[in-house]
């Protein structure tokens, strides 16, 4: 069975675990850097990106996570997770892990009262994927090797670049596991190649 980790420094960890378990994978809640060694893929959950970044630095996760990305293993970030992965964050001097070639804008839809849910057409995943947007970012720009998977009213909300998958919304808050199944497929394919 393949091992998929969820970075568990802060945020909606349990919900991701539930969605992944439905795909028959072994889920590992990652709180220590040495746990990264046993993983075939890694999820960055939703939460607060500033908090996660502080804890990443505090517990020396930064370099091991960069190394994990360089090893070619798949990574999936939802909302705050996508912000951690982006090479550029609008209005901020420095990005976080900077592994996926895109610019994100934080809280792009506004404050909590503007948070919403809707059905999305996501390439390769489904035409009616349940998207829950909570103080969500948008992907404002993507690099040439990034494939746009979904747009909402003209803004990019899901994208894939090789081993990296990112979305603005929270598939973990719904009973719709198709985004997770899609990521698990990415991990399985990567295993066959490796």
């Amino acid at each position, binding site marked *: 069975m393949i091992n998929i980790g969820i970075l*568990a*420094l*802060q*945020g*909606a*960890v*349990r*919900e991701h675990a539930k969605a992944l378990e439905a795909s028959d994978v072994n889920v590992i809640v990652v*709180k220590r850097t040495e746990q990264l060694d046993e993983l075939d893929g890694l999820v960055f959950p*939703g*939460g*607060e990106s*500033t*908090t996660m970044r*502080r*804890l990443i630095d*505090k517990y020396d996760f930064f370099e091991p996570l960069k190394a994990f990305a360089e090893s070619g293993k798949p990574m999936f970030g939802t*909302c*705050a997770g996508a912000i951690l992965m982006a090479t550029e964050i609008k209005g901020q001097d420095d990005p976080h892990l900077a592994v996926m070639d895109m610019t994100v804008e*934080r*809280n792009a839809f*506004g*404050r*909590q*009262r*503007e*948070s*919403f*849910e*809707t*059905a999305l057409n996501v390439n390769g995943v489904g035409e009616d994927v349940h998207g*829950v*947007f*909570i*103080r969500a970012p948008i992907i404002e720009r993507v690099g040439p090797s990034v494939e746009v998977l979904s747009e909402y009213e003209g803004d990019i909300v899901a994208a894939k670049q090789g081993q990296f998958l990112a979305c603005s919304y*929270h598939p973990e*808050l*719904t009973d719709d596991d198709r985004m997770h199944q899609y990521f698990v497929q990415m991990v399985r394919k990567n295993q066959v190649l490796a």
Partner: protein
Amino acid sequence: MKQTGTDRVKRGMAEMQKGGVIMDVINAEQAKIAEEAGAVAVMALERVPADIRAAGGVARMADPSIVEEVTNAVSIPVMAKARIGHIVEARVLEAMGVDYIDESEVLTPADEVYHLNKRDYTVPFVCGARDLGEASRRIGEGASMIRTKGEPGTGNIVEAVRHMRMMQSQIKQVVGMSEDEIMTEAKNLGAPYDVLMEIKRTGKFPVVNFAAGGIATPADAALMMQLGADGVFVGSGIFKSDNPERFARAIVEATTHYEDYKLIAELSKGLGSAMKGIEISTLEAKDRMQERGW
């Protein structure tokens, strides 16, 4: 079709705060310290609970200019408190774009009979509770997040512990009951039947449950996490301590790694004095904020 203010969106916002610390702040400078320390949200207030307690008189919603100042200072979510049952304070905070409203017993209640009908609002609410009945009534009214009441502004964890243990033990009882016992339990607790049935089915609250009221040290925060809290609110504990920056960071780290005792020892070293604190038995009944609301 796009829908705002749904249960999923309001409860989901609280789900994203899990494992985190929400800190009381009274100005932009404190808000920045909190964000820098890794707070998942800030609560914008005119005074922290310890000062409200000391000042006496009627405590109301904060001056909107403070809420605005804090909102402009940070990128993390901003919460603010409205008085229990004060429809207009809640509407004002919602109109200002506050991300979460705390219908709070720390302020003087505006209505001694009715809590807010929180389903009417697009903004989500957090409410305090001492036991499963109270928590379920608030969820029934539409609260999207629950927290223990504890005894705010005392720096004494004993009441938050009592409330969290009570809720956890009552949840276990409900889960262990057969379905035909639930209506009687609903009557006994004064809890909506549907909420208890959902708890029985899922084994947990339908919303996130944080600890609040009296958390003063990193060890206090870790204790509440071990008792089953999804995260913690720290009110007076941080900015009433000797070294707020270090205290804030230490509490954030202890909340994440609440079972790592060596780490908690390390980050508790030389932190300076925590807030002074109050022994609960010295508080007269009228001074107990947890008795506000029902």
